[in-house]
């Protein structure tokens, strides 16, 4: 039982980080109807920025965290405005290819700047576990769960309680009406890219202590994020969170109890995507679109 609970907590911690990246994918999918394949690489790059700030420049962790997030948000918004925007009028596939190009460019640039040697990444949480009712629980895991939920909660408040969030939803769902109401739809798209990148960066920074920082760090994680987003419903932000947490727990349990599959966690995630798409294409919390024909 204690073993199970320990697995549950570490699964939730990983899941919280998957949920953040999944939410980043969902934010852009909701606004543009496509996924940004470079989302994981953006997160990795921002994590390197945080690392440089802390290790090379001696910036304290909280400030480095905030600065890296700011960098991720401004950078992604600029990329949307300058690189993606010219392709938005063309076919959607064009934009998808651009995000694939961004994936390999960002990855290559990180390798060029920082090299491919995995690096230890600092964590603000103590390394020794706490004992709750006889169960050893890592404070690192609890911290990751806490930060993830905090970020996801902030995004929820932004979208549901603020004027900017309402305008972003309107721009995504009804671009024509939004323009007539004075909303700059293009501007909202840039804000959306920025937000998504910020949320993704949280995921990278939270995972880096356990995964080690290197340019290919997020390449498995992005698959998990896809699985989480599809599981929860690719258009549902809450679904992304639920999907991420479920997937984290599922993978932890598979790793712990089904030893032969422990090395096939990625395959389990991909299988999950296929099963969800076949059985319930709209995901757990997605809405089924009914269209009159």
């Amino acid at each position, binding site marked *: 039982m204690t073993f199970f609970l320990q697995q549950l907590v570490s699964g939730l911690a990983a899941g919280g980080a998957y949920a953040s990246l999944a939410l980043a994918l969902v934010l852009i999918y909701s606004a543009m109807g496509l996924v940004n394949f470079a989302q994981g690489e953006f997160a990795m790059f921002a994590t390197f920025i945080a690392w440089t700030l802390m290790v090379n420049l001696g910036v304290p962790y909280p400030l480095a965290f905030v600065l890296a997030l700011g960098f991720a948000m401004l950078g992604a918004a600029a990329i949307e405005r300058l690189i993606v925007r010219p392709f938005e009028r063309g076919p959607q596939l064009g934009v998808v290819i651009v995000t694939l190009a961004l994936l390999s460019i960002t990855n290559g640039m990180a390798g060029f700047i920082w090299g491919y040697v995995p690096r230890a990444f600092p964590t603000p949480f103590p390394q020794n576990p706490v004992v709750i009712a006889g169960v050893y629980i890592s404070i690192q895991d609890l911290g990751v769960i806490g930060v993830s939920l905090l970020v996801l909660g902030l995004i929820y408040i932004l979208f549901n309680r603020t004027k900017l969030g309402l305008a972003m*939803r309107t721009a995504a769902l*009804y671009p024509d009406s*939004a323009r007539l*109401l004075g909303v700059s739809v293009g501007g909202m798209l840039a804000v959306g890219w920025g937000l998504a990148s910020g949320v993704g960066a949280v995921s990278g920074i939270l995972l880096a202590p356990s995964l080690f920082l290197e340019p290919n760090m997020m390449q498995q994680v992005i698959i998990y994020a896809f699985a989480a987003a599809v599981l929860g419903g690719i258009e549902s932000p809450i679904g992304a969170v639920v999907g991420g947490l479920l997937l984290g727990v599922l993978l932890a349990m598979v790793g712990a109890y089904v030893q032969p599959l422990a090395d096939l966690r990625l395959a389990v995630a991909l299988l999950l995507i296929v099963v969800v798409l076949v059985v319930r294409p709209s995901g757990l919390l997605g809405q089924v679109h009914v269209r009159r024909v």
Partner: protein
Amino acid sequence: MALLELDAVTADYGPIKALHGVSLKVEPGEIVALLGANGAGKTTTLRAISGTCNRGGRITFEGRSLRGVAAHDTARRGIGHVPEGRGTLVQLTVWDNLRMGAYTRTDKEKVSTDYDLIFGYFPILKERRDQHAGTLSGGEQQMLAIARALMARPRLLLLDEPSLGLAPLVVQSIFEIITSINADEGVAVLLVEQNASLALKIAHRAYLLETGTVAASGDARTMAADESIRRSYLGY
């Protein structure tokens, strides 16, 4: 100075030219009807003004040119466009639709009194406040569309076929509200309407569009009395 002035305005949808030089004026506080058959260019004229189609020629609003002004900036300058089909934000609540109407405003206190003003004109919207806008009837959605546009405090309201698909009684009450909003709030209205006799009843002046140009114009009463307009558009 006219509130809105169009001078030889053209518009196209790719290779298809929809307007071939439309010139018209709307004075402050006026209701101007834009009449014409299907495909005459009525909707396109409104879209040219709000910047939601390719356009050429000169459009001036409050003395400033709208050349190169994006749709969302046109809205910010004080032109409210209630589009064909109403543009309801169906998945959002009635309240959120109205909040989006006030999106461009920064005068918070005035906005909250304007909600009350709007609910005074459209009491049904107050009852339906927390419902999803998609659950409203057609007439209620039309009211919501007008209310939402008014929340931005426009000086000019572009109304595209507010009577479309609605029962005669509902149409009548919407037109009464348009008249009183115009009289009480001083909002000028450029009204596109298939139902010419109805439009001419509330309008001060009217323009008749035929295949993308202005074929006739004048005071609403004169237009209503004109033999050929009566036969072609009023049907008696």
